[in-house]
Every structure is written in C-alpha cells, then in structure tokens.
C-alpha cells in the first residue's frame, strides 16, 4: 500500500512554514488543469462553428483563445515548478538538517556500526527519495488524478454513454498497465541487483590491481569478469523485455481506446446525439487520457519504493541516544582533577548484546595539573579510558569525575569544551584551514586563532600555506602530512582552552622538524592543565608525572613515574629495560 498518511505526518511539520506557498501552488496547478480541460472545448466550438459557416472573426477569436489558454497553461506550469521545487527543497533541507543533527548527537554505539557511506544514503538518499515522492505525488499523481476525473466528468456531461464507455475503458486500461508493471517489477529489481553485484566485484578488482598483477591472477580475474557478464545477460534481456511488454500494453490500450471512440462516435453522430465537433472532442479527451494514465502507472513503482524510505527515516528519528545528555552541572575553571571510581565498562554496538568487559573496576585519581602517561598493549582499555573522559560513553558501573563533578551530571557542552582530546587519526574537512581549526564556528575571530598559532609556534607554518588561514584543505588527510594534521588538532584544542587534555600519541615516526614542532606544542598544551597521554614511545612517558599501566581492563600499576622507575620490581622499570614497542604490537 502507498504510505500516504505516514508520509504526510512526516512532512507536514516541515511544510507548515510554507503554508501560503503551498496554497498558491495548489491554485496554480488546478488552474493549469482547468486550462487543459477547456481547450478541447474551444476546438470543438471552432469545428462546429466552421462547419456551420460562422464568421471569420469569431473563428479567429476562438483560435486566439486556444493559443492564450495553451500558453497560459505552460506558463503556469513553469511557475508551479518553481514553487514546488522551492518548497520541496526548503522543506526537505530542514529535514536533512534535523536528521543529521539528530544522528550526530546519537551515542557512539550507533556510529560504530554505520559507515559514512550508509549515512549519506540515509540522510541524503532517503530524504531525496522522499522529496521526489512529494513532488511526484502532488504534481503527478494528485494532479493527474484531478485531470483524469475532470476529463471523465466532462465526457459524462457530453453524453452518458460516452461517459460510461470511456470511464470503463480508463479503469480497465489503468488496471492492465499496473498489472503488467507488477509482472515486470521483479525483473527490473533483479537487473539492478545484478549490476550492483557486478560493480561491487569491479570495485574490489580495481582496488586490488597490485595484488592481482603481482600474483599473476590477471587471467583468473578477467575470466571472473566475463562470468559476471554471462550471468548478467539473461537478466538484462528479461529486464528489457519487461519494458517491451509495458510499452506494448500501452500501444494496445490506446488502439482499443481509439477504436472505442470510432465505434461510439459514429453511432452517436449517426443518430444526431453528437456534432462532428463533439466527436472530435471525445477523440481529443481520449488522447488526453494517455498522459494521466501513463504517469499514474509510472508513479506506482516510485510510490512503492518511497515507502521503504519513509520507514527508514522514521526509524532513524525514533532512535535516541543511550547517554542522558541533560546534566546541568558546570565544571570549575582551571586544571581539572580526574577520578575513576570503580568504573566498569563494556561496549554495546547498536542493538547487540553488551560485549566483553573492557574496563573492570578501574579506580584512580589524578590531581589537577598532573600529567599521566598511560601504558598498555592494544586492547588493554587505554582508548576506552579516553572515551569515558570525553563522555562518548557512560560506564556501566562506577563514576567518572572531572573536577569532582560526575561526567553524567555535567552539562555536556561544558564538558566537551573543558576536555580536549587529540587522537592519532586526525580527520580534516574539505574546507579552509580556519574552518578546520574552529569546526566551522563562524564567531571565532582570526585574531584569536592567530594568537593561538603564535603561542604554539605554528605561525610560520600557517603563513607558509598558499592562502594562510583561508587555504582550502582536501578531506581525509587534507593533503597535509600526519604531523601537520596533528599540529592542526592541537590548535583546535588550544582554542577551547580546556582544563584536561588527552593525547593519543601518533605511533608513526614523523620527520624531525615536525616532531620538534609537536614537542613544543605539547609542552604548551600541558602547561597548567591536567594531561593524560596514551603513550606509544618511551620518550613521551618521560614527560609524565605519573604512570598508569593497564592490562586487560585493570589498573596493574599506578604511581609517580620517578618512583616506579627507581623500583626494580615495578613493571614500569622492566618496560624501560625491554622497550615499549614490544607490548604495543
């Protein structure tokens, strides 16, 4: 069934601000349809008057009225397109914006299971399908239904027999066309699926040319390429024949319609019920039926598809974040203390069951202004620690406190402003350096940014870029080196002036010049702030006041760095002996 009501419920809020324009659009469309319906009547009068020998002036007047109405109808349809597109895009853009914001604020469990590609499909793809559906539905389906009813009504007015005859024909025609289309739909679906499979295969092949070539598998993959084509061909043929059948139905239907007009027309003309002009009128109206019948048939397919899109958008809007984001406590200014109080945590992706315990009764306390180096092998829970501090997740048991305030009751915006984190993998946006630094904050002043850059020793680096702060970066790594991207991320954080800084150190080796810049920036960043450094190198740990070693989600060692290093029985001192990379592999 066509989910009109669902669709309406979804869009009505977004259409409300455009109420006036919607009404105007409806008026225009109806007027246009009226023009379309009136014109054959004028031709009928013309023919009848011409045959009866009316005056030239009257005939020319009819001809001009015809032209005026026809041109008027076209002009109306242009204006209607303008209105409909504007309303459609404005309303759906609002929906896109809200949907994107809603999703962006959902918890990380939601995002972990979804690729950016999928989000593009769900936020733009589904909404665009809805918007097409809106345009199609209003203009094509409703408009054409009105046109259809109008034509049939006028035919009834002409003559009851004509009205009944053509109405039955129209209904039968529509049923036949939709019926045939439903036969062909699965064939078309199959072709689409085949081509999706083919391009999926091709994408892998194009991405793996190095592996294919170096392993001498060219012949094998060319064969598979052709195997895909072989499988595709019969489905392509069936898909095409589906179109042929549909077209054929159309041809037959209208041959039947025309024949029907001949039959009824000749009879009624013979007994004097219809004038020759009226027979031509019936003929024209029957031809005019082609358009609404064909369009309505065509829309049936899209309407069915739109149903799926609507429920996907609704599902998305119905999701809510697992985190309660309504805390209202402010964090105190200055460096923040950090406390984990018997924190236990496990990830939960989407609707899945709660996974393995990642942090197990973790407790420790860091005084304000101290710097902690966190060590542990992959999977020991280091990154999770950072994610709880930035409140990307909430613990299952226990509390995370920042400056004595539990993260759960802190005001989220405030928390995010007071806690800064730099990860290994810095994501850049396709935008200017400035927007990348401020996350598109239009209120951040260039002076403030430059001040921070000078402070971090990056002023020279920025002025070396072609357009300074206005230099456009590409997405992904932005055409910057890993080191440069990190510097950018430091600046982002510095702009927020947080009380706690979390650094997930880059594990790859950088060139010496960049490394020096980063060292300096980190020094600056940690001055008078609490720091948590997830370290991958021993050199970095020397910066820390305290050392925390995690293993399988438990704190196995926590204490002052100097003291631990001096104690030959400590794990940390053995680290210093053996080297770090070993356990981080």
């Amino acid at each position, binding site marked *: 069934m066509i989910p009109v009501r669902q669709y309406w419920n979804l869009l009505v809020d977004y259409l409300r601000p455009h109420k006036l324009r919607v009404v105007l659009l409806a008026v225009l469309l109806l007027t246009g349809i009226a023009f379309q319906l009136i014109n054959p009547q004028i031709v009928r009068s013309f023919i009848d008057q011409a045959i009866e020998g009316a005056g030239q002036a009257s005939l020319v007047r009819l001809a001009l009225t*015809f032209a005026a109405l026809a041109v008027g109808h076209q002009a109306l349809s242009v204006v209607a397109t303008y209105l409909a597109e504007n309303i459609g895009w404005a309303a759906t853009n609002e929906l896109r914006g809200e949907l994107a914001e809603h999703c962006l604020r959902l918890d990380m469990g939601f995002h972990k299971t979804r690729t950016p590609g999928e989000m593009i499909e769900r936020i733009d793809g589904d909404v665009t399908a809805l918007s097409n559906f809106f345009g199609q539905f209003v203009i094509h389906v409703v408009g054409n239904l009105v046109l259809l009813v109008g034509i049939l009504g006028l035919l009834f007015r002409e003559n009851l027999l004509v009205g009944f005859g053509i109405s039955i024909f129209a209904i039968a025609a529509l049923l036949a066309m939709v019926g045939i289309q439903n036969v062909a739909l699965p064939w078309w679906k199959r072709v689409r699926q085949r081509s999706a499979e083919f*391009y999926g295969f091709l994408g892998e092949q194009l991405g793996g040319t*190095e592996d*294919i070539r170096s392993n001498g598998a060219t012949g094998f993959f060319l064969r598979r390429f052709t195997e895909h084509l072989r499988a595709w061909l019969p489905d392509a*043929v069936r898909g095409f024949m589906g179109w*042929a059948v549909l077209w054929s139905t159309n041809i037959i239907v209208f041959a039947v319609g025309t024949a029907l007009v001949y039959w009824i027309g000749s009879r009624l003309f013979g007994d004097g019920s219809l004038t020759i002009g009226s027979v031509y009128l019936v003929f024209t109206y029957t031809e005019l039926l082609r358009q609404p019948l064909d369009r309505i048939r065509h829309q049936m397919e899209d309407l069915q598809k739109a149903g799926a899109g609507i429920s996907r958008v609704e599902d998305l809007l119905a999701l809510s974040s697992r985190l309660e984001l309504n805390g209202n406590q402010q964090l105190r200014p200055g460096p923040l203390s950090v406390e984990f109080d018997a924190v236990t945590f496990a990830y939960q992706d989407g609707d899945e069951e709660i996974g393995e315990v990642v942090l197990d009764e973790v407790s420790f306390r860091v005084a304000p202004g101290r710097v902690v180096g966190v060590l542990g092998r992959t999977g020991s829970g280091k990154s999770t620690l950072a994610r709880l501090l930035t409140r990307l997740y909430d613990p299952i048991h226990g509390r995370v406190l920042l400056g004595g305030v539990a993260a759960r009751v802190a005001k989220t915006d405030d928390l995010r402003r007071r806690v800064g984190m730099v990860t290994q993998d810095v994501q850049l946006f396709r935008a200017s350096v400035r927007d990348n630094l401020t996350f598109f904050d239009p209120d951040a002043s260039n002076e403030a940014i430059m001040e921070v850059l000078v402070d971090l020793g990056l002023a020279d680096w920025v002025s070396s870029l072609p357009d300074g702060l206005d230099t456009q970066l590409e997405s992904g790594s932005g055409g910057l080196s890993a080191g440069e991207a990190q510097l950018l991320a430091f600046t982002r954080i510095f702009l927020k002036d947080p009380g706690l800084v979390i650094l997930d150190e880059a594990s790859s080796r950088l060139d010496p010049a960049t490394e020096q810049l980063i060292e300096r920036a980190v020094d600056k960043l940690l001055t008078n702030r609490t720091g948590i450094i997830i370290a991958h190198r021993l050199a970095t740990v020397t910066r820390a006041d305290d050392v925390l070693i995690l293993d399988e989600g438990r704190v196995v060692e926590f204490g002052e760095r100097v003291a631990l290093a001096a104690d030959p029985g400590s794990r940390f001192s053995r680290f210093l002996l053996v080297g770090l990379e070993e356990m981080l592999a």
Partner: protein
Amino acid sequence: MNASARASVPTFKLMLGIVRFAPWRYAGNAILWTLVWVMPVIPGLISKEFFDGLTGEASVSFGVDTLIAFMAAYGLGRVALVAVAMLNDVYFRFRVGSLLRRNMIGRILSLPGARAVPDSPGEAISRFRDEVEHVEEAVDLTVDMVGTVAFSTVAVVVLASINAQITLFVFAPLVLVILIAERAGTRIRIYRQAAREATGRVTGAIGEMFGSVQSIKVGGAEHHMIGNFRVLNEARRKVMVRDRVLNSILESVFWNTVNIGTAIILVLAAGAMQSSGSGAEFTVGDFALFVYFLTFATDAVHFVGIFIARFRQAGVAFERMAELLQGAPPETLVVPRDLELRGAWSAVAPPPDRGTLQSLEVKGLSYTYPGSDTGIEKVDLQVARGSFTVVTGRIGSGKTTLLRALLGLLKPDTGEVRWNGRIVDDAASFFVPPRTAYTPQIPRLFSMSLKDNLLMGLERSDDEVAAAIASAVMEPDLAAMAEGLDTKVGPLGVRLSGGQVQRTAAARMFIRRPELYVFDDLSSALDVETENTLWERLFADHQVVTSLVVSHRRPALRRADQIIVMNEGRIEAVGTLSELLVTSEELRRLWSEEPGEDNGANSVPV
C-alpha cells in the same frame, strides 16, 4: 584532470568502431526502430478517414468496422515489432557495453599494478557504469534519430499533399525550436554540472561529518557542523531550483510549439473549412491529421535536441574512459574481441616458465611520484639465490617504492633490472609467479571464498593448500571458521582482521612457491612473535628460499644476509647487521627504536 589536459577523442570514429563491432545487430536495430517510429503515421491516417467518413468527405469510403479492424491490426503489428526491436536492441547494447568494459579492464590489468587506476577505484567505477551507459545510449539514439526523421519526412509529405501552405506555416517554427534547444543545451549542462557539484558537496559533508563523528563530539562542535551543513543545503536548493525551472521552461517551449502550431492551423483553416459538404479545402479529418502529426513531429524535433546533447555527452564519456587507459590510444576502447558471452571458454594463458633464480640485479632504478619530488633515486642492489635481503629505513624513505618499481608495479623512470643476467623488458608481466610473488603492506582480499582468494585460479591439492596455510600461521584462525576454506570473506561474508588478511596474503604467496618471495612490512598488522614464527616456518618448509623483505624489526634484521638501508629515496648503506651497526648511524637509530633483547621477542613482561 581539467578539460584542456584531455586528449581530444574522435567521438565519431569511436562510435563507428562500435557499429563495426556488431554490424548485424546495428543494422537490425536501424531497420526495426525506423519501422517502429514510422508506424504511428497509420493511426493518424485512419483517424482522418474516420472523420472524413462522418462528414462525408472520405476519398475512399471504409466502414467504421473496417477502420476499427485497421486500428487493431496496427496495434498488434506495432507490438510485434516493438518486441523484436527490443530483443535485438538489448543484445546490441549488452555487447557494446561489455566490449567497452572488457577493453578497459583488460588495459587496466596490463598497467603497472600500483598505479593502474588514475583516481580512486570509486571514481573509476563511475566511468565503467555511467560513461559506458552514455555511449550505449548515444549509439542507440542514432537509430532512433533515423526513425524519427523518417517519420517527420513522411508526415510532412503527407501533409503537404493536403495543404502545402498550412504545412509550411506550421512546420517552419519548428526550426526555430531546434535553435533554441541548441542554445539552451549549453546552459543546461552548466546548471546540471553546478547541481551535481552542489549535491557532491552535501553528500561529501555528510560523509565527513559521520567519518569524524568522534572528533566532532569531543570538540563539542555538533551545532556548528550542522550550521555549515545547512549552508551547503541552502546553496544546493538554489542551484537545484534553477536547474529544474530551466528544464521546465524548455519543456514548455516544446509544448507551446505544438499549441501555437495548432492555433496557426485553426486560424489558417478557419477560411478553408468554411465551405461544408464535399469539396471543402480543409476537412475535419485533415485537421485531426495535422494536429496529430504536429505532436509527433515536435517530439521528433525534441529528439534531435536530445540527440545532439547525447552525442556531445558521448564525447565526454569517451574522454573519461580514455583517461582510464593511461596512455593507450582511445581506439583501444573499441578494439573488437571475442567477448565469450556464451559457449566454451578459451584457455587461460599458462603461467610463464619458472627459470630457476640465480641472481637478481637492479641498476640505477629511479622513480618519482608524479607531481611530487618523492620517490627513489638511482638504486642499485643485488639479490643472490637463497639469500634473505631486508630493506629498512624510516617512514617515507622509499622502501615500498623500491619494491614496486622493481616488480614493475610502478613504471620506473630509469634503470634496469636483470634476472639471471638478462634484462627484463616488461617487468610488470615478468615478475609474476612462479618467478616472484608479492605481499603488499596492506594486502587486498576479494569477496569470494577463502580458498578462491588463496588460489585465484591456480590448481593445487588440498594438502598443498593446507601446507601454505600452516606456513602462514593461519591454521588457528581457519579452525575457528565454521565453513573453513569455503568461508566467504569481504563485506558480504566474514570480515577478517588486519592480521588475518596479511597472513592470508602470505599464504596466497606461499602456495605459488615462487623463486623470489617479496614481502612489504608484515609488522603493520602482525605482532613480533607471529612475524617471527612466519619466518621460521618459511625457512623450515622450503629448501631454498630467496626473499626480499621490507622490515624494521630486529628478528628480521638479525636473520638478514644483507640489509639495505634506505633514506630519502636513496640507498644509504648496504651490509650485514654487525657491519652496519658499526658503520651506519641511520641503522643504529632504527635499531635503537626497536624492542630490546631477544627474550623480548617471545615474552611480554606484563
């Protein structure tokens, strides 16, 4: 790549090449579609007879029943014709599309593997899909073109025989429409392009937003990000509305041509229709015929406009496809070949002769990445039979580039490679199993069974497969998979971890038992212990192993017969570990950053 950098492509010649590839199907299309398009002349004439019959002006008096029978015959005839034409067409189009695609993939798989696709694979796919479709469509439209022109000609001749003056007045404005459409075509393309770009920016922004959702959240930047997203959406609305309105205007122009044409017929016919009864200059039937033909003729003109646009689009499509060929002439796209869409398969070319490796020599090998100054410069090296050579250096020193240039996966700018003393001409085709096999740093597996991924068409016994898997330290992973070797991998099957992918790729290499094993840095996904086990098994399972390996790990360096230290694209030092620890500062630096004593390799002190 910008337009000026594009090689000019002979669109017409290429389209001719396509027609020559499937001449009979094309000829069939030409005849069948012309008939399909000309046939609608018939119902026009029947309707004229009908109206003239009613007003008693028919030249031949058919009864209504006869006319109805004609209509039925017309309907059935055209349906039959459409069916045959469609059937012929689908085979024609499929063959044309397959030829273009097959020629492109064939060329891509003959190019140096590391740079076989100029942009991203996703971008290349759009060329395989959309550009091919554009060309198919353009070639197909040539036939429809002929058909509609034939229809219009017939229509004009018929109408002129009825009333030449009215015909002239009605059809002359159509020429004007062609000109308008032609003019508007450029603008449509500009608007369309702008609309595509605006959409690209919106989808790009969504992708970026959700690709870096963590940093946005941590940065507390949701609000500003959405603000920016809304700005992009708004920009898109503007260009979209502009594009759609322009289209709607053009559409209106075409329909108004019909409408105003009809009005002209009415005005001109006003006088001619006056004298009723037999002998009228212009009958109701004539009027019906004029209006009917006018609609079709306008469609035909519309069609000419579409065709011109599509022909141009095909030119762009050919250009974009030719870019994928990277240097081969555009004619390569339409080189005829047996597509093997049915029947028996031709034999796959057998692998080259093994030719026992005695020595591999590289002299003066240089490669610079286009548009940069990074790469490798004048690299000399030798690999002797049975030796273990390790290439090391810091990130960006050119290790991977060296392996790729040597194997022909990148086309070296200068330098020569000798295999047993003989110069290798086409390195990309020469360095394949059983001579060499290679595991890239980030290997790719394909969406098929694990077994197919290992063999990739090779025929090997189960024992051999099992042995290769064991050598690659894959057997515990395999044991955990319910379907074993038949497990499907990839996005539609089981997602493997980075380490599993790398070990599968190693097994894929082992199963080929090449003369020379080439590994690029196993350390990115394997821990030290596993890497070490893999080396041990490789040497234990094979009698003579010659290998060339990128690594910075101590166990590999210690095992090496020869270490090559790369720095900024050049070889900085060559020697054994003990020599280099004395002579090379760079190696000492690399060594010191690696984990400590040997006991560290096997036990982790936590």
